[in-house]
């Protein structure tokens, strides 16, 4: 099976500090993966590299069947190629309605002129409504995003990601600040999404990762410490020392 994303030998330094150290990582086209690791392990920086926000000093980041390098592409090009990203803190456009937030993300022509002459079709409207139903915000479409609860904002952001129809979804700490019921809904959304695409979930919370029930990659000081099932990695002595031991 060929990988959808292949990161190999990547190193990033910030002012002499190695945030990512010879990191290698691979994920297939329809796979759910959890990335765990203590604070400062480099999880967010890893996402920054894949999405083009941070350029690594060395290494390769290859994408898709043709193994295109993502390193020479801009953030917007990478997003259009099919990489979607959810940030750690929910970032939705507070000033705009839930509907407009989703419409903005809908996979459509992204060029200024294309957007200028865009007219919303019944099909697009239906698509937005279906997405809203999926994330449990069907009755909130007309509300400003600013008025949503923290958990609802997280879902809206996940909804926006799904609207982009990405082939790879990178999700940074989605469960942070959620109630147990909200967490459960979020888990369902992610597991569902991973049936048709690759999903990488960065998470702190072990219980949440357990419920995802997927392969786990443990990151520490910018490199992969262990990889495998949750039970497998939690038995690893190194992992226990640096992460679970605390």
């Amino acid at each position, binding site marked *: 099976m060929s990988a959808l994303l292949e990161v190999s030998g990547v190193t990033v330094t910030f002012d002499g500090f190695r945030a990512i150290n010879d990191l290698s990582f691979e994920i297939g086209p329809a796979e759910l993966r959890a990335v765990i690791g203590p604070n400062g392990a480099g999880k967010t920086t890893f996402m920054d590299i894949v*999405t083009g*926000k941070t350029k690594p000093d060395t290494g390769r980041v290859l994408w898709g069947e043709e193994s295109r390098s993502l390193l020479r592409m*801009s*953030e*917007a*090009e990478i*997003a*259009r190629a099919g990489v*979607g*990203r959810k*940030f750690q803190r929910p*970032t939705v*456009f*507070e*000033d*705009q309605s839930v509907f*407009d937030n989703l*419409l*903005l*993300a809908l996979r459509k022509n*992204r*060029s*200024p002129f294309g*957007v*200028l002459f*865009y*007219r*919303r*079709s*019944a099909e697009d409207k239906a698509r937005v409504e279906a997405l809203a139903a999926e994330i449990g915000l069907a009755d909130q479409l007309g509300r400003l995003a600013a008025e949503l609860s923290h958990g609802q904002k997280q879902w809206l952001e996940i909804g*926006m990601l799904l609207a*982009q129809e990405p082939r790879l979804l990178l999700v940074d700490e989605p469960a942070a600040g959620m109630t147990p019921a909200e967490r459960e809904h979020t888990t369902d959304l992610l597991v569902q999404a991973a049936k048709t695409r690759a999903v990488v979930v960065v998470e702190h919370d072990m219980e949440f990762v357990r419920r995802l029930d997927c392969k786990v990659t443990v990151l520490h000081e910018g490199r992969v410490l262990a990889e495998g099932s949750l039970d497998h990695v939690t038995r690893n002595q190194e992992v226990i020392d640096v992460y679970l031991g605390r």
Partner: protein
Amino acid sequence: MQRSFIARNPSVLVFLAALALFTILVTILAEGAGAGVISTSFVKTLGKTLCLCLVAVAMDLVWGYCGILSLGHFAFFGLGGYMIGMWLMYARTEEIVLSANAGAALPMTPQELSDGIAAQIFGVVGGSELPWVWSFAHSLPLQLMLILLLPGLIALVFGWLAFRSRVAGVYLSILTQAMTLALSLWLFQNDSGLRGNNGLSGLQNIPGLAEVPQATLSLWFLWASAFALGGFYLLAAWVVSGKFGSVIRAIRDDEARVRFLGYSVEGYKLFVFTLTAMIAGIAGALYYPQAGIVNPAEIAPIASIYLAVWVAIGGRGRLWGAVLGAAAVSLVSSWFTSGQVPAVPLGFYTVEWTDWWLVLLGFGFVAVTLFAPNGLAGLVERIFIRGAK
């Protein structure tokens, strides 16, 4: 299908109706139409105010909606004035030179005509040849095109360089100030070919319309200004009402996030920056024939800062707020600086408003920032729209 644009934005219709009503009222009351209640010079002031409202709409589009605090848009306004001014001065001087030669036995050769015009225009700065920048001044269509093309091209190149390097926020504002300062310093030089600090003058005299009194001309310009304001207001409202508006407001609020949605933020910024520069050019081209003179002091850095202040006072992110701010502040400003406002004697000191108006404006700006962050428009909305619910 979506409902039509006007149906979704009834406020646009209200604005256009108010603008039409205003224009009709001024016309009826003006000297030029017989009633004579409004003097010709005040008609010109009102016409100029409409042009300032138009450039404020452009400023609101680029700053209030797209989040680019350009402090250089008045440079584009001034350039529009220079472009129309060159034709006005050239064609008018041509008339004068030809009529002075009317009695002569031989008609003038093109060279003699050109030299005669140059001597008239550049006598004040000691020149007698037409500089290269006047190459198209003989042609109205070409100069009209330059009103759009020159500000558009400068904005395109400047914006491309700045946005591509991801210059944003306060650094971009400083860069735009540097641009307008450089342009005004260049224009101040005599050898830039635009008459240095004298600028272009006599612009109120329209070539070929010598018999039309200023009272009538002032009305024509008022109508043209109102028409331009209405038209571009409609265009701006259309641009911001749809998905494009949604994208640029998203860029204003979180541009990194918009990038990760797959939109090339730089392209959008460049589009809005260039479009608004062209609108500013048109506003300037309508303003300066009513002012009669355009000189480099007009595009001093402070002018662009005032423009931002108008929009901030009026209310960013609301087109009619920008219009309100520009109209209110510029009219009050011209009243205070006209010397008609009675001085306030305090015994130990007399407050002359021509000196103290700027201080008052400064306090007004601070007050709005502190107490009405959405500007006058925000206040109006709070009082009327919320009240109506």
